[in-house]
């Protein structure tokens, strides 16, 4: 099991309490899931100045982004692990090269920012496809990314890992699973019951390194909300009702991750399990 947690205060009126955990599960021999949680901040620290007014420096310090990423690799003989790892690493590389788009972020030109995030996913996809192009059908991975620039969360989603948010005790699934099963239901070709009995529910209709069809969108968070990203190793064992209860009861991102992980393991742990949580905790007034 690997885990990371962090609670950082900021000048946005509250704290984003974050944690991430991944586990091989009880059945699989390897863990093909990857995750990371990162914060990005404009860094210009005032050491000395002749200025009377230093408000401009406050502005530079204020802007902060959080990046939540979950990837779940698919492929034979360890290929899935390579794909998810490669996707996440190339994402980091691309974002580090294009940090300017974050520094230049402005809500009125946010489409440019969204385009950069989409380009980062395309970059990860191209990297995997190029790497395995000479080896026939290569491995692939799901990829769910949420970028929080308070209060806005921009998400890009490929595959069947999920993003949710909890507000006032109500859990909402932000992403829709991109599986063949969902597609068949949408097109009216099969019923939900038929799909559940088939293997189509787990067959990806969109994947990084496969047939890439990213879904893009955004939501605005409020203080008190909790953001959850996870691989299907969690949701195949833990119902929406349980997710709601656990996220609602947890007093930290760390405990939420642990409780969710335990619930998935108790439910059978048939797949790798990855849970990433971000809690928006308002400062005491």
């Amino acid at each position, binding site marked *: 099991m690997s885990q990371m947690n962090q609670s950082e205060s900021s000048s946005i009126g509250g704290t984003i309490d974050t944690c991430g955990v991944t586990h091989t599960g009880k059945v699989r021999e390897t863990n093909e899931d990857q995750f990371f949680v990162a914060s990005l901040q404009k860094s210009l620290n005032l050491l000395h100045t002749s200025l009377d007014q230093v408000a401009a420096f406050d502005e530079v310090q204020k802007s902060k982004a959080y990046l939540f990423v979950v990837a779940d690799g698919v492929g034979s003989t360890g290929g899935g692990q390579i794909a998810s790892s490669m996707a996440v690493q190339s994402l980091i590389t691309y974002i580090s090269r294009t940090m300017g788009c974050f520094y230049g972020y402005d*809500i009125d030109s946010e*489409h440019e920012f969204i385009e950069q995030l989409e380009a980062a996913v395309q970059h990860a996809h191209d990297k995997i496809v190029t790497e395995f192009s000479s080896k026939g059908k290569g491995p692939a991975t799901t990829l769910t990314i949420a970028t929080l620039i308070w209060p806005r969360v921009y998400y890009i989603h490929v595959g069947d890992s999920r993003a949710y948010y909890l507000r006032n005790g109500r859990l909402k699934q932000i992403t829709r699973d991109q599986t063949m099963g969902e597609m068949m239901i949408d097109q009216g070709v099969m019923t939900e019951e038929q799909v559940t009995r088939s293997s189509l529910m787990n067959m990806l209709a969109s994947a990084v390194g496969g047939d890439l069809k990213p879904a*893009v*969108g955004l939501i605005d968070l409020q203080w008190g909300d909790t953001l959850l990203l996870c691989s299907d190793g969690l949701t195949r064992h833990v119902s929406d009702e349980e997710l709601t209860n656990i996220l609602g009861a947890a007093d930290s991102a760390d405990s939420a991750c642990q409780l969710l992980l335990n619930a998935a393991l108790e439910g059978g742990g048939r797949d790798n399990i990855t849970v990433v949580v971000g809690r928006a905790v308002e400062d005491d007034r």
Partner: protein
Amino acid sequence: MIQKKICMVGVFGTGKTSLVQRFVHSMFTDKYHSTVGVKIDRKQVLLDGETVNLVLWDLAGREESEEIPTSYFRGSAGIFYVIDGTRRETFDQIFAIRESVQGTIGVVPSLVALNKKDLVDEWRLGQGDYNALMDADLHAIGTSAKSGEGVENAFLWIANATVNK
């Protein structure tokens, strides 16, 4: 390339997502999925020999308990209002939503899609309603995401209006 952000706005369940699905992916599903936040899609259209990239912001429908965050409207070149012609209240609420839009971004080219036109027997709008839209300077087009009727026409109308404003 010219890029135009268009916001799809209306009460929940009026068919905003279905209209986008029909226009962008030529698909329709009877299964209802409530949109969470904003879903963004793109489609390129050719207008007078020039390619225009439409960035379609499909906003979660307005519900009684939740207003649409007005910051979603910022940067919009046009607004695509959607009414469900079989639910009268979706017509009544469009004027309040428009007020909120105009209070945020001012007057921009706008269109009203009178959606679910295929459900003729359940239609609840009449001439008086169409006149009210005209009086409010809102161009209306009948659409059916299910049959595809009027959908292309509606999106091209708003695209043209944003380019030629």
